[in-house]
């Protein structure tokens, strides 16, 4: 046995952050899938809009602008507490990580509240016409992600509070941040499509 070359890897780290670890790639693939799906919803939106004589289809009114704009701003701002959380987790700083999670959940609930308000300003039902259908599905899919992510962040925060302070959980927290950023970034084209494009006439 001693005659063969051996590489001793026991000194290697047993947890790593970011693309060095497995979980990051898993989350990244998942986000690729979800982006593709939302992308196809958006393409469908433009396809249907292209076929219509007017958009929104008469007699539907334009959607309100205030609520979604406020929602977008809050969503963009939410990146800050998440960045804070991610940094804290990377430092393996338990107390700061917990603080970060609490802040994120709080702002997450705020975003969900804004979302409910947005729905009320759409002035169209999903079964009114195809404009309504495609608008609802895009917001619906995104909201579903938003809801899941806030839940996930809550569970993570609780686990930290319960003292599951293993390095793995900190890695999970940073990968969770990736999901959060995705939700923020992907909403920008959705916002432009749903609320600005119809105003272009």
């Amino acid at each position, binding site marked *: *046995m001693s*005659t*063969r*070359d*051996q*590489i*001793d*890897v*026991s*000194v*290697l*780290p*047993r*947890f*790593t*952050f970011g693309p*060095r*670890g*497995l979980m990051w*790639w*898993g989350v990244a*693939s*998942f986000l*690729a*899938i*979800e982006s*593709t*799906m939302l992308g*196809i*919803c958006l393409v*469908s939106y433009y*396809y*249907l809009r292209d*076929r*219509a004589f007017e958009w929104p*289809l008469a007699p539907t009114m334009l959607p309100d602008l205030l609520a979604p704009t406020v929602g977008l701003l809050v969503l963009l701002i939410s990146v800050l507490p998440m960045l804070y959380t991610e940094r804290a987790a990377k*430092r*393996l700083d*338990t107390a700061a990580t917990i603080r970060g999670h609490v802040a994120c959940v709080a702002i997450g609930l705020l975003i969900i509240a804004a979302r409910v308000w947005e729905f009320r300003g759409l002035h169209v039902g*999903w*079964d*009114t*016409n*195809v*404009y*309504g*259908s*495609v608008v*609802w*599905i895009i917001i619906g899919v995104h909201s579903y992600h938003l809801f899941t992510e806030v*839940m996930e962040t809550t*569970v993570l925060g609780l*686990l930290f509070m319960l003292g*599951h*302070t*293993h*390095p*793995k*959980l*900190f890695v999970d927290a940073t990968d969770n941040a990736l999901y959060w950023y995705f939700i923020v970034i992907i909403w920008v084209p959705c916002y432009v499509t749903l609320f600005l494009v119809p105003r272009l006439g």
Partner: protein
Amino acid sequence: MRPAPRGSGPSEPAARTAEEASLHQELQETWSRDPGLRGWLASNDHKDIGRRFIVTALIFFVLGGLLAFLMRLQLAHPNGTVLGPDLYNQIFTMHGTTMMFLFAIPVMEAVGIYLVPLMVGTRAIAFPRLASFSYWIFLFGGVALYTFFFLNIGPDAGWFMYTPLSGPEFSPGKRVDIWSQLINFTEISALSASIELIVTTFKLRAPGMSINRIPLLVWAMLVTSFMVVFAMPSVMTASLFLTTDRLVGTHFYNAAEGGDPLLWQHVFWFFAHPEVYIIFVPATGFVSSILPAFTRRPVFGYTALVLSLIATVFIGFGLWVHHMFATGIPQLGASFFTAATMMIAIPSGIQVFCWIASIWSGNLRLRTPMLFVLGFLFLFVLGGLSGVMQASVPLDLQVHDTYFVVAHFHYVLIGGAVFPLFGALYFWFPKVTGRMPGEKMGKLSFALMFVGFNLTFFPMHVLGLEGMPRRVYTYLPETGWAGENLLATIGAITLATGFLVTLVNAWWSIRHGAPAGENPWDADTLEWTTPSPPPAYNFLHVPVVDSREPGWTRTSASPIVTGVRSDCREVLLTSLDAEPDSLMELPNPSIWPMVTAMAAGTTFVLACFTPWAVPIGTVLGGIGLIGWAWPKSEDDECEPPRVEDMSEQEKKEGAPRVRL
């Protein structure tokens, strides 16, 4: 589904040094699944999962084949009376759906799940619990579909479910709903499997297996997985739209309210064209793996083959409109898709020519797997050439939706994918079971399949030219189609007998086949350097790869990795250029993936009936996922210490990297 009873030879690694024997003991304890039914259900060993996945997919293949057989009986004569229109429509839809969604895609993923970790030289698949989940959700989907079918609620609008025929107005009842839910089952299963395979290939390759040493099958599975990741969401969206149209009254495909039936076709084919390459590309991987063993040389043109695969992926996403030429696509657009479709013949041609060159310059042994490869070449090229004809718009407008197309796609699907799959089954049979498959029966099966296949599907080209549309449950005697149809039916019986012989062969060989040993075909990839069947931990020592053909070059003196814990389910992570990078503990077997799959399955079936399935499913799925991801108990010595117990030094990651 257990491998052959051990004892009489295959299996246990030839005992080497005492040191190695105790290492084997310890690894065995760490990696084996728990005994009993619970252990079986909870297993997250990729080999267990791969095996049951393959067997299940083959069962669906037999079911789909039996349905095809019924169709052939009905069509053998004009004015056939075996099946009525309602049943016939369910049967051809079930046949297409089964073959595409429950057989062809899953079986390819399944072989990947079994082989990829072995081929890249690691102890387990990335995300083993997800792998277990992807099997269970697939199984539940298939069982749900067939349960509905036996209750006479089988889908009946064709495997591509064109709207508005499949919409709420023209397909009332639940038949179409179960189809769209089946799409959810399969897509989740395939997407999970793809993520596992991508990450396994990226992060778990043995040290030294750099980009240019990755086996061609692994390349094939990798590009396939990427296609799944970018194609599946499309059908997911299409079927989401369809479900909401049917269930809550949205109007995506309803022309009266501004929707468009053609939206369905675009979104569906944007998935379903890549899908045919999702089925075909892994098959090319089988071919490239089988060839070296039987031509006694590495495959000719490794780089060209890899680049062809990648080109296929990219071009493959730009072809979908060739299924829609008859819808009245503007001429300019149609011309673009003609050009793109013809272009895909180039990477396929490169592959075919490289394989022929390998045979030409090798020293050929005509064992059963190799026969299937040769059969593949003859059949796939024919099917590919008829595909090129269909790429031409004016020509396609004539042959579209006729038996000419049916002939084309069976040539590429059976000739191009099922023949290599059978070659693969024979090739890896000794690895999986530890016993050799019967050679005589194998050759007999091949001969029957080859002859039967051509008898069945060649006449269909002629039928198409003679104007026979597909999806007709009957035809009139004066059409003159009777002769070819009868021939096709006779051929189908021969073909089915050929399959049957292989099944019998497998059954017999598992019990009585000669012991296989590590590398019975003298093949070139890593899985052949470990015992057959591979132990739960795959490799006694994680290998260090120093060539593209480790199966041929590795000896007992070849370099290995040490320092990966054997008392924990620990695997070595490598960087993109296959340098050792870090260690990671993988999760234990768990029953939760199956529970989560059950929760998801219940949700999907409920979603045929009520939109409340979404909140119910969220809760059920949430419970399953929490159980799944719950952190392990406190005192687990495999886990790195809690952060409070770490020194500042330990907290700073970036321990020295090991260089080769």
